[in-house]
């Protein structure tokens, strides 16, 4: 197993209270696979992605759990050790290409620096910078450009180029295409696919389930800071178990032809004070229909069960008793 996340919990200590950004999150990433995390904004999917390399933005803090990368707990590592893994074995691409490059430095310098911090000497780094720029289909002269001289798509290519520099074991891509238009989106997805072909595991985060369905091997669904369902792409799309996952899948017209586009009624809960029991119950259509679920869904949090091989769900509907 490349990456194992066990019982991860992240809280944000804000002025208006403690926001429970993620709780009880456990999953694993296999070598060479593409796993996609789906959820609404505020579902904790980005929080978990950042927690994996211990980069939760302030005022967030990782309060529980461990992140085992090739068997070693990243959260218990000395900063210097962790620094050697970041950017080399695990790379990250951020959502907004407008803000993820330093506006004051030439992109070439930023690419070269990313290699130099891991011991590549200057000449070699410059040479390799040109090569990887070619890989992401940018002319070599772009090295001398400042970020503001490039388009959003070009900047995202630069970010991916930096992420590719060491052929990492894991790429964490936090909504890398959200801020881009559709045609550029596709090209960026292709680049990530190429990285996968070269052996990198892809940890992809998106709010768009159709994008998730396109290329991933597995899909994980998050709601209100918790992992509610995880399975192969086929399992999730063809046989969604959790009512929330169903709603997500149904909300995409092409995937579920006979039904109309449906938004999920209600709003995600306030994570300073999450609902008791299953966090989805106030919005759950089944809970509303079935009176016998009262006293269960709204009281006790559901266990995570393996309903079919490799398909896990956290929902009382599948809990038997």
């Amino acid at each position: 197993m490349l990456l194992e996340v066990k019982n991860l919990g992240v809280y944000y200590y804000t002025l208006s209270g403690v926001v429970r950004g993620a709780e009880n999150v456990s999953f694993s990433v296999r070598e060479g696979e593409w796993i996609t995390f789906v959820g609404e904004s505020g579902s904790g999917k980005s929080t978990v992605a950042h927690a994996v390399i211990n980069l939760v933005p302030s005022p967030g803090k990782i309060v529980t759990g461990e992140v085992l990368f090739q068997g070693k707990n990243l959260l218990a590592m000395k900063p210097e050790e962790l620094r050697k893994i970041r950017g080399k074995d695990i790379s990250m691409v951020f959502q907004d290409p407008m803000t993820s490059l330093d506006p004051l430095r030439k992109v070439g310098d930023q690419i070269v620096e990313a290699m130099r911090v891991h011991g590549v000497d200057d000449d070699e780094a410059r040479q390799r910078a040109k090569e990887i720029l070619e890989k992401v289909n940018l002319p070599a002269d772009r090295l001398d450009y400042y970020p503001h001289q490039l388009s959003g798509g070009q900047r995202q290519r630069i970010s991916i180029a930096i992420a590719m520099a060491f052929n990492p074991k894991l790429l964490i891509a936090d909504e890398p295409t959200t801020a881009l238009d559709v045609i550029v989106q596709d090209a960026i997805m292709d680049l990530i696919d190429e990285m996968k072909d070269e052996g990198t595991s892809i940890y992809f985060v998106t709010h768009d389930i159709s994008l998730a369905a396109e290329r991933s091997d597995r899909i994980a669904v998050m709601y209100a800071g918790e992992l509610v369902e995880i399975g192969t792409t086929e399992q999730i799309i063809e046989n969604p178990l959790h009512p929330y996952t169903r709603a997500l899948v149904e909300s995409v017209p092409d995937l579920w032809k006979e039904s109309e586009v449906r938004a999920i009624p209600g709003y995600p809960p306030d994570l300073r004070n999450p609902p008791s029991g299953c966090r989805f119950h106030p919005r759950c259509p089944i809970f509303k229909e079935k009176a016998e679920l009262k006293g269960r869904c709204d009281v006790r949090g559901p266990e995570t069960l393996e309903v079919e091989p490799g398909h896990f769900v956290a929902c009382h509907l599948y809990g038997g008793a």
Partner: protein
Amino acid sequence: MARGLGRYIVIRALMIIPMILILYTIVFFFLRVLPGNPILAVVGTKNIPPEQLAHLEHLAGLDKPLYVQYYDYLIKMIHGNLGVTLASPMGKPVSSYIALRLPATIELTIFAFTVSVLLGLATGVLGAVRKGTKTDTTMRVYSIVAYTLFIPWFGMMLQYLFGVKLHWLPTSGRIDPAINFHSITGLYVLDSIIQGNWTALHSVLSHLVLPSITLGIVLSGAYTRLVRNNMVDVLSQDFIRAYRARGVSDRRVLWYALKNAFIPVVTLMGLQFAILLGGAVLTETTFNWPGMGTFIMDRINYRDYNSIQGAVIVFALFVGLISLIVDIIYALLDPRVEY
């Protein structure tokens, strides 16, 4: 790129001209058009023979029509001539006085400026990296308190503590008069270093400590606040986390953040410099510092309007030059500036 920058500098430099003209006009208006005869004010009595008054007015050029006076002075100004003193002693070129006094103010403001920027950066960065903690609140209160310190009072308290009570530092003047020292440029620190006169350098620096710390601390408050807010902003941006995610060390990341946070601070510097010069007048008066501020106050006692006018123009030129330099630094630092 280099040619573009050259052009930019020339255009920016030309923009100083209207500013100086406007200030000249305002001051000329206030000093000449408002009621009151400057000569009578100087002499202090109305009982002087009319022919002597006429002679004095002629000497000062006050017998000509206003617009001629305005024009004459303007032409002189372009040639670097700021007119002659109207009093005590009369008829001396104003520029010769200013040449004596200006270096003292430049020296004081350079030191005070350095103190204010360094203090502002340190306190601002500290507040930002400890955002939301007691340290942050302390830095915030520091910023307000420093900003509202009244320069003469603060200066006096330092004089009392370090001069009267502890006898550590001198409280007035630029140098111990007992030291044999000959100034070339008027910048005493520079002169004493050039001449290798270490006794003088020691004295000059110890005289500089209290005035420049007084002025520097007061001016640092505005930087503290701006640096802190910019730094918090920058630190929350993706590129900072992207650097970390690439394995760049925390110290380097902080350095890059500081560079980004510094850019808006550069733009503040021009404006702060004007406030610094205003504060210098109070600092000079408090510490008996023979600079432009005390020069203006001396001349005010003699009602020497020509000298005051000359001093204001020099101040305007000073402010204009500083804002030009600030803009050039800004253009060099920030690749996003188009020129």
